[in-house]
């Protein structure tokens, strides 16, 4: 049973501790090749005829990349051409240590059957384990371990009877390592060398990441940036307080400015301002960096100008001088990068003016990201297309980071391509559902069984109806209201029982958990669950029996809850109405059927509930939302209108809020450690600055001490003859708010929902489009003994990782939605020519104003001076920044397409 032959003690000293670990060496680790007869591997991974057409290796061969090759050339390794690769355990461990995203990608590649990637556990193999020698560095040992393993493979395969000319090839970019390997009699190539030798796949060359050797050739010796400190010095610096660690956030509007959000709240503010290329020192948006604070006299105020990095040769842009002392913020410079957070970026290629040049600048769609210099031979083919580029490095003597081409998405401006871009850019998983996922769908034809009826309350006799926006196919909530014999009202909220169909842990569940939310784009919906569930089996359509999770209250006429009851149920909706239809029924005095009466009862109660909620200090905010009328054939936007709110909208919303709060209380009561809740933290007072200033410009006062005070003063802030002003203030107030987030009750102590003024809140009412609701359904089902638990549901750490993913997906979905609206707005204007519209100034910057055109919900920057032309003389006073004046725009600009 125990296969260990020898055991070796591994000593690792960290500080003063000496840790002794056992390390078993085995003789039952197989080489994983089809050729081998010696190893007793049941399902070998590596193929017999491992053939990649290459001029260097004309025989079948297996590739063994070393750590740096995997880290830097992962784009190449992921290509379907690359097959039969041996990933050594040594390599895998090093990769895991150095870069989590690459580790995940290489693991995905290993799991993919067609790629024939094999992981060889060389560290535990009897013949390939190497011990660190006296004076040998850890890196050298690992390099040696890789060579020893490659050598072993060579000898091992030679022993196989029908191996033929099968060889292994070591890929390394380290010159010394390559020489040593050749000395040992190994075939070793540099990665570029090998890729360039491939016949029939020239496009792979473009994807090669630039390595350090080549970087030096690119630009002259001029050093532009100070050196980054090594990690060890950064760590000591952070420990003794000379440096601060934080997340780097580039300024969208000004490429010379950024802030670093410092983790772990210090007293001297949590944000550090950085100005000037030198001080930004090659940090890229979202990197974890170490910053050094300047002494107080060098602190600066954030610049109010909008700067676009438009000129490729603009190497030295002048720096902004500090302004008033009252605006001074802690200022500093980046001394080192702790962790890069580079991902592939979407964007456009700007072709170099020189025709034959192979180096071009790439402009990412995300304005936080600097331009990237890439090398490609197919530039002319790529111009005007959306492409994906990855950053490889940013040498000290280069103005821009270096990168390489990854993928071509298609023509810019093309609707499919643009949608793809914004989905990729916002990291929205949008591939069609895999076979494994679909296999967990219920068999059709599906019907409610006797067993279902036995364990569920039969509520089919109730007069339930649903109210939704027009065209909605995923109906996840329905309502009813009826009078009880004792004069009280019974109100029910019935939610689609998605958790009945999605069982914990299976592929369908995992996929939904990963997607987190359904993403609604203009004219397109990226579903969280397959359509069969979202639009059919779960959707509470009218006149069919559907499974539901019901929350039923008994209320008196004052909308006070007397009793709350949760149950799994079967319902049969009597009508699916739109908001307008429902409103019409309520208003039409001649209609007196059950549905209408039920709606009237609900509406009356909702008004009381809303009043009470506002009394408590719930905020009514606003955002300039627009809807498009789409052409049904081409899906082009033909007209747009701002969203209208009817009474029935808030009627449905009120009951959804009530259901969510009731469920939150119930699950928290039952599972104080692992309830999934939603909170909305109160924003820091400084967030309200823009709002207060804007109001002051019209001599109005906004109180921000509490949610209640804010709500009241917003209500009071009405200007006669300027009705939109209040909406403008509410739009600004929305921007002051923090993001609402999901969290696990066992990991946090502050549960308050600021915006809704509720002490506890969760999401229960939209399980078809939000995964959080599915989890809440499961928790509630356990709480009422309708379902069993499963391990992950009760594990607060797993819950909180899930919450993080959900928060991330929600945020990204929101951004994607906005981006999609923006894109369609542009499509809309493309054919419109010049229009004259009324706009409102949201903010005033030094050289530009930010304008909102209310009719289109469109926001844009208007520069005072055009390129080359001097603008009018302006005096700028930062105190009145954010003044809102009706500003008849001389000529509405056509939005630029590529930004």
């Amino acid at each position, binding site marked *: *049973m125990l296969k260990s032959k020898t055991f070796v003690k591994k000593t690792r000293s960290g500080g003063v501790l000496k840790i002794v670990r056992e390390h078993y060496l085995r003789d039952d680790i197989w080489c994983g090749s089809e050729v081998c007869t010696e190893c007793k591997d049941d399902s070998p991974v590596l193929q017999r005829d491992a053939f990649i057409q290459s001029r260097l290796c004309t025989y079948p061969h297996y590739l063994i990349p070393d750590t740096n090759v995997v880290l830097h050339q992962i784009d190449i390794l992921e290509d379907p051409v690359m097959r039969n690769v041996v990933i050594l355990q040594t390599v895998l461990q090093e990769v895991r240590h150095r870069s989590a995203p690459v580790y995940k990608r290489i*693991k995905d590649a290993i799991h993919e059957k067609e790629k024939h990637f094999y992981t060889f556990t060389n560290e535990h193999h009897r013949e390939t384990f190497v011990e660190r020698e006296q004076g040998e560095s850890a890196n050298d040992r690992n390099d040696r371990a890789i060579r020893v393993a490659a050598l072993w493979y060579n000898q091992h395969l030679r022993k196989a009877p029908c191996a033929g000319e099968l060889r292994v090839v070591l890929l390394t970019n380290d010159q010394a390592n390559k020489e040593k390997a050749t000395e040992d009699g190994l075939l070793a190539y540099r990665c570029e060398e090998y890729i360039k030798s491939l016949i029939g796949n020239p496009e792979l060359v473009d994807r090669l990441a630039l390595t350090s050797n080549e970087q030096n050739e690119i630009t002259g010796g001029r050093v532009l940036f100070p050196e980054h400190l090594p990690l060890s010095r950064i760590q000591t610096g952070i420990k003794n307080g000379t440096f601060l660690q934080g997340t780097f956030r580039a300024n969208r509007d000004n490429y010379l400015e950024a802030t670093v959000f410092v983790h772990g709240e210090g007293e001297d503010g949590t944000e550090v301002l950085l100005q000037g290329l030198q001080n930004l020192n090659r940090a890229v948006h979202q990197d974890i960096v170490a910053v050094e604070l300047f002494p107080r006299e060098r602190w600066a105020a954030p610049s109010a100008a909008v700067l676009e990095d438009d000129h490729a040769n603009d190497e030295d842009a002048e720096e902004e001088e500090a302004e008033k002392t009252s605006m001074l913020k802690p200022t500093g410079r980046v001394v080192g990068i702790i962790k890069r957070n580079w991902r592939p970026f979407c964007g456009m290629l700007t072709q170099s003016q020189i025709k034959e040049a192979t180096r071009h600048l790439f402009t990412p769609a995300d304005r936080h990201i600097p331009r990237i210099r890439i090398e490609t031979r197919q530039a002319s083919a790529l111009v005007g297309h959306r492409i994906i580029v990855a950053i490889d490095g940013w040498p000290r003597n280069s103005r821009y980071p270096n990168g390489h081409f990854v993928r071509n998405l298609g023509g810019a401006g093309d609707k499919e391509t643009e949608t793809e871009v914004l989905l990729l850019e916002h990291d929205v998983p949008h591939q069609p559902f895999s076979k494994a996922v679909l296999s967990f769908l219920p068999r059709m034809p599906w019907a409610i069984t006797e067993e279902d009826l036995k364990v569920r309350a039969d509520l089919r006799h109730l007069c339930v109806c649903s109210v939704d926006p027009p065209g909605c196919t995923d109906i996840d909530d329905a309502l009813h209201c009826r009078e009880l014999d004792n004069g009280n009202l019974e109100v029910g909220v019935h939610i689609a029982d998605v958790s009945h169909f999605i069982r914990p842990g299976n592929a369908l569940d995992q996929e939904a958990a990963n997607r987190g939310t359904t993403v609604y784009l203009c004219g397109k919906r990226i579903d969280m669950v397959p359509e069969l569930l979202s639009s059919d089996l779960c959707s509470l359509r009218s006149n069919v029996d559907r499974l539901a999770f019901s929350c039923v209250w008994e209320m008196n006429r004052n909308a006070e809850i007397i009793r709350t009851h949760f149950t799994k149920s079967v319902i049969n909706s009597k009508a699916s109405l739109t908001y307008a239809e429902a409103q019409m029924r309520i208003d039409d005095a001649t209609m007196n059927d059950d549905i209408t009466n039920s709606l009237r009862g609900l509406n009356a109660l909702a008004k009381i509930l809303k009043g009470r909620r506002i009394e408590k200090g719930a905020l009514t905010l606003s955002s300039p939302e627009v809807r498009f009328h789409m052409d049904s054939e081409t899906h082009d936007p033909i007209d747009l209108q701002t969203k209208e709110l009817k009474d029935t909208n808030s009627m449905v919303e009120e009951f959804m809020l009530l259901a969510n709060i009731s469920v939150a209380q119930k699950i928290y009561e039952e599972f104080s450690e692992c309830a999934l809740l939603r909170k909305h933290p109160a924003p820091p007072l400084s967030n309200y600055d823009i709002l207060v200033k804007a109001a002051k410009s019209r001599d109005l006062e906004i109180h921000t001490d509490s949610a209640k005070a804010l709500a009241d003063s917003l209500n009071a802030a009405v200007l006669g003859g300027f009705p939109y002003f209040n909406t403008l203030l509410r739009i600004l107030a929305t921007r002051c708010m923090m993001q609402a987030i999901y969290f696990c009750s066992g990991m946090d102590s502050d549960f308050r929902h600021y915006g809704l003024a509720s002490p506890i809140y969760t999401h229960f009412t939209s399980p078809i489009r939000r995964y959080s609701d599915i989890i809440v359904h499961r928790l509630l089902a356990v709480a009422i003994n309708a379902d069993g638990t499963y391990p992950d549901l009760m594990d607060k750490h797993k819950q909180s990782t899930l919450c993080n993913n959900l928060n991330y997906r929600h945020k990204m979905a929101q951004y994607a939605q906005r981006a999609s609206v923006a894109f369609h707005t542009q499509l809309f204007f493309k054919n419109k020519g010049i229009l004259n519209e009324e706009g409102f100034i949201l903010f005033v910057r030094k050289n530009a104003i930010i304008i909102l055109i209310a009719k289109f919900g469109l926001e844009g920057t208007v520069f005072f001076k055009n390129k080359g032309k001097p603008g009018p003389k302006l005096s700028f006073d930062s105190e009145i920044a954010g003044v809102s004046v009706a500003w008849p725009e001389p000529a509405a600009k056509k939005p630029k397409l590529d930004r």
Partner: protein
Amino acid sequence: MAGLELLSDQGYRLDGRKASELRKVQARMGVFGQADGSAYMEQGNTKALAVVYGPHEVRGSRSKSLHDRAVINCQYSMATFSTAERKRRPHGDRKSSEMSLHLKQTFEAAVLTQLYPRSQIDIYVKILQSDGGNYSACVNAATLALVDAGIPMRDYVCACTAGFAEGTALADLCHAEETGGGTALSLALLPRSQSIALVQMDARLHQDHLDTLMEAAMEACKGLSKVLDSVVRQHLQEVSVLSRD
């Protein structure tokens, strides 16, 4: 940085074992002349020494003695040099007293105490080096020492730990695995009757996983019992050869 990966995709653990494999077990009986029974036990890097005195009459206050069976007295201690950081207090702290109590309960279930009324059996165990699974090493060592002392027992008492990582149960945890997160369950088993003498688990675990974990721990205990049995037989052979001379 990222935590330890307790079980790789290829199914190997940190030290190269597979999920159900035990660490290397080595044991010797009769290591001390003065005591009535003694044994030395290694489970990987965990090393334990057990010494048994008795049965003898009850020492100290008479009131402790029981009229129908023997009293079992256990003392557990750890050598000051047994852990990576030098231990200040080798015995008598809360953890040690708890461990002593657990050992006492385990052996009261296994030793045929009713054969020795009004008498006492002393079991002293010391951990010389600690690398996870201290309790199980102590139980196994003490079992061998009791056998060496010739004290009748129902069966060998075999103990082993089991943990849980990524849906798989891991047998016989080493120190890194014990501290690396997750649950650790210690189980003492009388293998022939499959009866459990003691089971202990500190962390939280979903009940769906408990069965797999118990199963894995019991399998491991059965594996250990084979090793202990062979140690005892070999010891007997050596002793009988010696006494024949």
